[in-house]
């Protein structure tokens, strides 16, 4: 009786262990199969895959222009999202009275839940036309539109996570500062921000990760032509694409080595985003350790 009970316990434990280990398996699976698909492209192009020459008929598969586009759009999005996100987080965690906080936090979290295809749809209907008129562009489809959409999408993530980070600052530290006669704003600026800086950076990195990986919304408001605009800082140019957007627009109508090149860009994307989530996590753990250790 006792023995069978023990056996049952062991079996259950192992079932749980296997399901937990499944995550690792999925990661390895994804990486293996993507790399297997992408390998011919890496073999064919070598380091040229990071070049800017994309010309499938001539066997040139450089996705540098798309990587450049991703960088430009992400920087633009962060210029919008980081200041707004941190300001919103300070407002929520330190200024807002509790009734405002309990209504605003769920609303901002809801904004994070809006599907990206809806952002893309709204982007095409409202934003592209608005930019076309406002900046007198040839068409509204541009890096600028992509950056604006991505910025709007990244703000709620940064707000929500930075708010958690600021809320985690121990009360005693705050009260010590207030007891010294500092105003609340001085406390926020000199005490709360520096102590929660690693949590805030984790939030920012996660926001960047989302912006880099976002697909549908961006692909709809960009021109999706693999070219670096002239001059390169021309964010109004309707050509240009990002890695994700290029994959999604080309995948349907490509074959052979071109498809492999798209898989290669997915591998590059995977590696970049994986590095980001790991570093975001390390920062978050540092915060936890700091406050647990007192």
């Amino acid at each position, binding site marked *: 009786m006792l023995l069978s009970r023990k056996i049952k316990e062991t079996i259950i434990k192992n079932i749980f262990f296997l399901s937990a*280990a499944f995550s690792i398996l999925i990661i390895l699976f994804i990486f293996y*199969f*993507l790399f297997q698909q992408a390998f011919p492209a890496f073999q064919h192009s070598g380091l040229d895959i990071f070049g800017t020459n994309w010309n499938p008929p001539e066997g040139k598969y450089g996705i540098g222009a798309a990587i450049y586009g991703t960088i430009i759009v992400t920087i633009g999005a962060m210029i919008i999202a980081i200041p707004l996100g941190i300001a919103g987080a300070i*407002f929520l965690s330190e200024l807002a009275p509790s009734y405002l906080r309990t209504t605003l936090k769920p609303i*901002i979290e809801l904004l994070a839940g809006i599907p990206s295809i809806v952002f893309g749809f709204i982007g095409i209907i409202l934003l592209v036309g608005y930019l076309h008129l406002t900046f007198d562009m040839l068409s509204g489809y541009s890096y600028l539109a992509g950056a604006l959409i991505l910025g709007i999408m990244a703000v709620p993530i940064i707000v929500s996570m930075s708010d958690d980070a600021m809320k985690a600052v121990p009360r005693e530290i705050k009260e010590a500062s207030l007891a010294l006669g500092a105003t609340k704003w001085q406390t926020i600026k000199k005490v709360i921000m520096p102590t929660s800086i690693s949590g805030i950076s984790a939030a920012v990195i996660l926001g960047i990760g989302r912006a880099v990986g976002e697909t549908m919304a961006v692909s709809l408001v960009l021109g999706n032509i693999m070219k670096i605009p002239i001059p390169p800082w021309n964010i*109004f140019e309707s050509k240009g694409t990002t890695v994700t957007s290029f994959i999604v627009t080309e995948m349907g109508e490509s074959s052979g080595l071109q498809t492999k090149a798209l898989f290669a860009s997915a591998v590059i994307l995977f590696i970049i985003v994986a590095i980001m*989530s790991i570093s975001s996590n390390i920062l978050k753990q540092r915060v936890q350790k700091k406050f647990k250790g007192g």
Partner: protein
Amino acid sequence: MQIKKIPQYVLQTLKNTLNRENLPPKKVLCYSSIFISLVAALLGFFSTVFSFYIGDIQLQIILITIGVLFCLLIYYSLIKLHKRKESISLIIFTCIVFFLAYALPLIPPKYGLQQFEINAAFLKFMIVSILLVIVGIFGVSFAMKPLYNFTSKSNQSSAYFILTFSLLLILYPLVVIIGNIMINGLGGISWDFLTQDVIKHGAQGGINHALFGTFIVTIGTAIIAIPLGVASAIYLIEYAKAGPIVRIIRIAADILQGIPSIVFGLFGLAVFVPIFGISILSGILVMGFMTLPIVIRGSEEALLCVPKSIREGSYAVGATKWQTIRRVVLPPALPGIITGAVLGLGRAAGETAPIMFTASIFMAPFPTSVFEPIQSLSFHLLQLTKYIGAYPVEQNAWATALLLIGIVLGMNAIAIIVREKYRVEF
């Protein structure tokens, strides 16, 4: 009166009118400057958003009013408060405002960027509106200074104002998106729309297939992600001892959560589509893997909330580990687990990229088995968005967007309500 004496006379009158006793009280002066700056900031914001130019004369009136009020403020803080150093920023600001009042109407209606080989232009209303917002925000911050006698409290007030203004900027897109979809979509939603087939590339007819497809994919995702996710969380929290394996599992879940949805889509295309074809099964496998980390995270947090003492009480009366988990730990953690699961499924219901290569086909017929493709709301909306301009699909696109947003946000709202209502306090 002699001509020589006129300057003296003017000075005398100025001194008399600006006499300490004649000067309006500090609060009235400061509050009116704050008010007019706020009006300028909001005007600038709305003229940016709605693309209109407020007009030369109106612009000059606002800027000159701000300038005059600030002149009074400067005089006040110099004469009455003796703040010479601190007033310098006020003086510079006022000079800039007067300069802008003179210069802004002179801007040409369009400042082209053609000389930089860029096919775009800064229109006058854009420059003016953005400058108005900046002037307004700075005006409010500077007007706070004399109000609090240039103490550190004035910095606090102006910082608070800027924070509140940025919250307005954060909430504005939400209002625009939800508001537009509500207004334009509600008219298109009807019983026919929900129950009919797609007709004429989505220009007419309804979306019953897409609705059914999204429902099926969400259910399938739940069947894959929830058992796996909850089991992983139970292992991580209840069984695992801190060590390299646990750390690796955590890192794996984190990476999984960060992987872009398009990468999941390509993974499905490379692995499942060759085996199962473009089918429901491929779609829900990909979606399930994508949702898994969210379920793990939510369940972990829920389990962590159950205090250790309760578990130890259960062991003390002779229960085994599994009995303790099933009877003691899981019941109070259930609302939290449900919250995490529903949040994950909400994300799955709205995603497009993972299923567009693995499960979805535009105008797919009703599936008869899990090995057939389906239509889904998000993919339907993507197709309609691409057809805008080519076919008259806009009305149906708005309605589809409303339905999609309703389903996704509805699920998120349920999750949040469950979390708030059934939260067990220990």
